[in-house]
Every structure is written in structure tokens, then in C-alpha cells.
């Protein structure tokens, strides 16, 4: 079985994203953010910087503090301590300027208005807005503009919230579980609309339970657990973090100790002529095997994001040594 180095380091990873041009202001800055509800520390010291144009997924199990953090980003609640800045503004001032908009799970809609009226009413509250018909179209609900909100499905209501969020042409769009209630096709349309906008420089931060969404649509994934950031990086980096990749090769007479001593190796298993090396830096292990040893039939397999998610956010996350599936 695996020997030694089982404690794969997962905590306190902080890969700062390559920021945009110097001299620009960050889309989002969270500094030492805490939120306590009585004795419950819902958010327990989050530091986060998001550069303009990034698409960031905010991942974490229920109760990890995602929604509480998002509430503070939008000025819906005030931090117990710490600071939030959205494009250099206090959240409430960013909201007033239409710089940040959000699709929230909890945002209620008036049931006695039609879809079109809801957007029209909301548009009166901003100084500059996109035309009502345009946002309805972008959200894919132009055809149901005359439908009363209480006659809309959950997915349609979610698109309506999305249309409302597009009104101010926000520079930062915050989405809390945005595709809840949407069918597969709706979800795909939704994300393609989001993608189009991010190409024009919009920053997007979304919380989701759909790991495949985070994997497919985010440039960067921030994992939080118990109110703290436990990992931050690209989907590939996150996957690597949990259990790393597994490098499998045929290598007769492999030397267990020297393989384990390689940098970035978390575990080594030798089964006859086959060697299985679990490593955070699989590339360098592969390079070593192919150049310094007689290894052949080399294979590198990645963990999927779901494994990483469970490993990093699960209750036993501190002992992430997961039994590896047999390569046989």
C-alpha cells in the first residue's frame, strides 16, 4: 500500500492569479473577512482578490459560508470584521452605480407582475440601463414577456432574475447557484450567454453545487470550507491538489525509496513490475521516469474535480489520503 508522505498538503494554497495590466483596480477584494452569527463563525477569515475579466467559481459544501460571503460582497450584510471592495467601491456604492449585479437564490419576485413588467420596473431604478427587450432576449425569455411571474417555472424565474441582473450592464456579476431549476438545455444557453459577456470583459463570480459547471466554465476555482478558503486555483490545479495525479509505469526493479524521495511525490506503490506514483507534480515524475530510468508504458491519470471537491471540503479533509483505485 501507500507509504509515507500521506498527508498531501491541501491547506493554505494560494495561487495568486496572474493579474491584468498594472494600474487597474481589482474587481473584487476581500480582506480578512469574518462574519459571526452569535457563536457560529460562518465566515472565518477570507482573503480573496479577483481581477477584472476572471470567471471564478465559488465552491463549497452547504454551510461553508458561500452565501454569507456573497451577501457581504453585495452589501446585503455587513462583515463582523474585515473589508470588501468591489472595483474599489464599498459594495453598496458599487450596487448604486450598477457595477455589480447578482442573481440570488433568495431574491424574491412579485408574483402579480408579468416578466416584462418586472424588468421594466427594475429598470426605472437605475440611471443607465440596457433596453428591456435586449435583456429579455439575452436571458432567453423574450417570448414570455407577457407571462405572469407566478405562471413561470423555476428555471424561467431564474432567467428573469438573470435578465434583471443584466439591466445595468454590470462589470461584476455575482451568481448564487444560478442554474438551479434549469434543464440541461437552459443551463447550456445560460452559460453561453455568460461567456459572451465575459469575452467583453465582464467579471463573473458564481457559487455552484454543480462541479461540472465549475470545471467547465470557471477560469479559477475557490474552494471554501468552514468559512475559509481551502484551495484556490484553476480546475486542473485543484484536481492536482486533492490527490494529485497518478503516474503509472512499468519499471522492473523499481527502488521504492528513491522514487518516494522525488519532489512532489506523495506516495509510491510497487506491484510486481508496475509502479504507481501519486504526485502533485506528475510532469516532473514522468520526466524523471522516462529520462532517468527504464520505465515504459507510462500513463498519467487525473482525478476529476468531484474527487478534489470531496477531498478538500469533506469532513475528514485534513486526512486526504484517499485509497487509490487499483490500477489493475
Amino acid at each position, binding site marked *: 500500500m501507500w507509504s509515507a508522505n500521506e498527508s498531501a498538503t491541501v491547506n493554505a494554497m494560494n495561487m495568486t492569479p496572474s493579474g491584468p*495590466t498594472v494600474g487597474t483596480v481589482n474587481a473584487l477584494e476581500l480582506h480578512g473577512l469574518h462574519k459571526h452569527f452569535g457563536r457560529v463563525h460562518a465566515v472565518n477569515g477570507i482573503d480573496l482578490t479577483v481581477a477584472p475579466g476572471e470567471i471564478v467559481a465559488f465552491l463549497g459544501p452547504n454551510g461553508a459560508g458561500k452565501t454569507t460571503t456573497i451577501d457581504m460582497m453585495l452589501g446585503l450584510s455587513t462583515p463582523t470584521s474585515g473589508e470588501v471592495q468591489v472595483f474599489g467601491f464599498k459594495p453598496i456604492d458599487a450596487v448604486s452605480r450598477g457595477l455589480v449585479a447578482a442573481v440570488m437564490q433568495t431574491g424574491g419576485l412579485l408574483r402579480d407582475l408579468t416578466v416584462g413588467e418586472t424588468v421594466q420596473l427594475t429598470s426605472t431604478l437605475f440611471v443607465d440601463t440596457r433596453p428591456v427587450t435586449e435583456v429579455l432576449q439575452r436571458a432567453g425569455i423574450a417570448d414570455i414577456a407577457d407571462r405572469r411571474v407566478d405562471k413561470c417555472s423555476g428555471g424561467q424565474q431564474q432567467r428573469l432574475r438573470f435578465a434583471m441582473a443584466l439591466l445595468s450592464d454590470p462589470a461584476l456579476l455575482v451568481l448564487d447557484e444560478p442554474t438551479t431549476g434549469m434543464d440541461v438545455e437552459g443551463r447550456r444557453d445560460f452559460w453561453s450567454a455568460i461567456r459572451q459577456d465575459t469575452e467583453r*470583459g465582464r467579471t463573473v463570480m458564481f457559487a455552484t453545487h454543480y462541479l461540472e459547471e465549475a470545471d467547465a466554465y470557471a*477560469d479559477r476555482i475557490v474552494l471554501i470550507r468552514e468559512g475559509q478558503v481551502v484551495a484556490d486555483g484553476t480546475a486542473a490545479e485543484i484536481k492536482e491538489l486533492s490527490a494529485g495525479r497518478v503516474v503509472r509505469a512499468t519499471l522492473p526493479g523499481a527502488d521504492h525509496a528513491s522514487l518516494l524521495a522525488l519532489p512532489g511525490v506523495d506516495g509510491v506503490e510497487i506491484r510486481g513490475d508496475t509502479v504507481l506514483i501519486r504526485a502533485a507534480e506528475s510532469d516532473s515524475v514522468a520526466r524523471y521516469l522516462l529520462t532517468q530510468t527504464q520505465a515504459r508504458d507510462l500513463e498519467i491519470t487525473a482525478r476529476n474535480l468531484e474527487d478534489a471537491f470531496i477531498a478538500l471540503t469533506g469532513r475528514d479533509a485534513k486526512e486526504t489520503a484517499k485509497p487509490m483505485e487499483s490500477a489493475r
Partner: protein
Amino acid sequence: MSTQPVTMPDLNRRVPPLGGFNLTFVRLEVRRMLRNRRTAIFTLIMPVVFYFAFGYSQRNTTVGSANAATYIMVNLATYGAMVATMAGAAMVSVERAQGWSRQLRLTPLRPVAYMATKVLTAMTLGAMSVFVQFVVGAATGNKLALDKWILCGLAAWLCAFVFAAMGLFVGYLMPSENAMQVMGPILALLALLGGLFVPLSVWGHTFREIARWTPAYGVGEIARSPLRAEHFDWASIPNILIWGVVFAIGAAVLFRRDTKRV
């Protein structure tokens, strides 16, 4: 991670004046209120129906020096204004329950501007209710000098602010989908205590003394005062001032608590 250069969004954007308060929003709110059949019936139609049921038949009798039908018409206009302003302001309760007020927090509309919108919507509905009652009253033969129409109408309408404040207070006190189902009967009771349905003289002394300090009494007394039907009870002035201030402060305190917590 995107590596292409990102165009910096334009951060130089304007904040709406008055915290987002605007008359288009008020107009849409009023239209929405009136589209609700229940609200339209209770604020515009019921008082008129009451007038035909209890007031019109009294057109040949008098209360003090005033025509009884006119006296009842003013009372019912006051009642209509009460219900209308309460219905408008108590929408805060419904909208908090539905999560709409939270949704609005994602717009430039400041909570104070939201409250102002609700008050103005409520007062607009109140004005409509009084107007409808008076138009029906005038059309069915009530004779009043123009200045008395105007003074009675303004008094009934403006004093109903007490009930707009009460509506806000209730609205921030309890988020409820059916605030008006609760408040409707309470308003009817207050109208009865306030002498809007039956003159207080029919009650015993103790009851009358208590009734004099209920809010609808003050509003009704002031609204009727231009008719000079009876001796004016000066206690009605501190009455509405005290109730108005109590409800406004109560609403303000709850409002502050609400916006802190969301």
C-alpha cells in the same frame, strides 16, 4: 485563466438621485395595486357600497347642522382613505415575505427611497379612494360649497397618513403574505371605534371616552370639521399627532433593524 488583455470596465457611472426614488416607479406601483382585485374592491368600491347602503337613504335627515348623507359620505371617504393607505403601506409586509425587498437591495434603490415609494403609493391610493367617494357623493345630490369639498377631502386624505405610517409599522413588524387579511378587520374595528360607521353618541360614556383616543376618531373628526355639524373635539388634533408620531417612530425603528439584517 484568461490570458488575453482584459478591457477595464468603465467605472465612472452615475448614482441615481434621491436614492433611486422616481415617479415612474410610483406609477407602476399604483397600477399594480389597483390591478389586484381585492385591493381595488376594498379601497374604491366598498366605501361607495357602504354609502349607498347606509348614507344615501339619510339624505333627508340631518346630523347637527349638516346633511346626514353628506356626513356619512365624509366618514366613509375617511374610512376608504384609511383602508387605501394601509393597503399601500402594508405591501411592505407582503414584499418582505416574498423576498422582493431583498431583490430590490441589489438595485440602486435605497431602503429609505423604497419606504418613500410605499408611502407615496399609499397616499395616492388614499387620494383615489376619497376622490371616488366624493364624485359619487356629488353625483347623488350632496350639496357642499366647493371649499368644503376640498377641505373635507384634503383632511380625510392627509390625516390618513396616520394609517400609512401604521401600515409601514405593521409591514416591518411582520413579514406576511396576507397582512391585509389581518389588518382589514382591525381597520373596520378602528372605524367603528372612531365613529365612522355609527356616531359615538350611541355608545355609553366610558366607551366613548376610550374611543376618543383611537386613531380613526381623530382622522374622522378632523375630516368632518369643515361641515361644522357638531362641536369640534380639539382632542382629535393631539390624537392624530400622537398616533402619527408613534407609528412613524415604530416604523423607523423596525425599518432600521430590518435594513441592518436584511
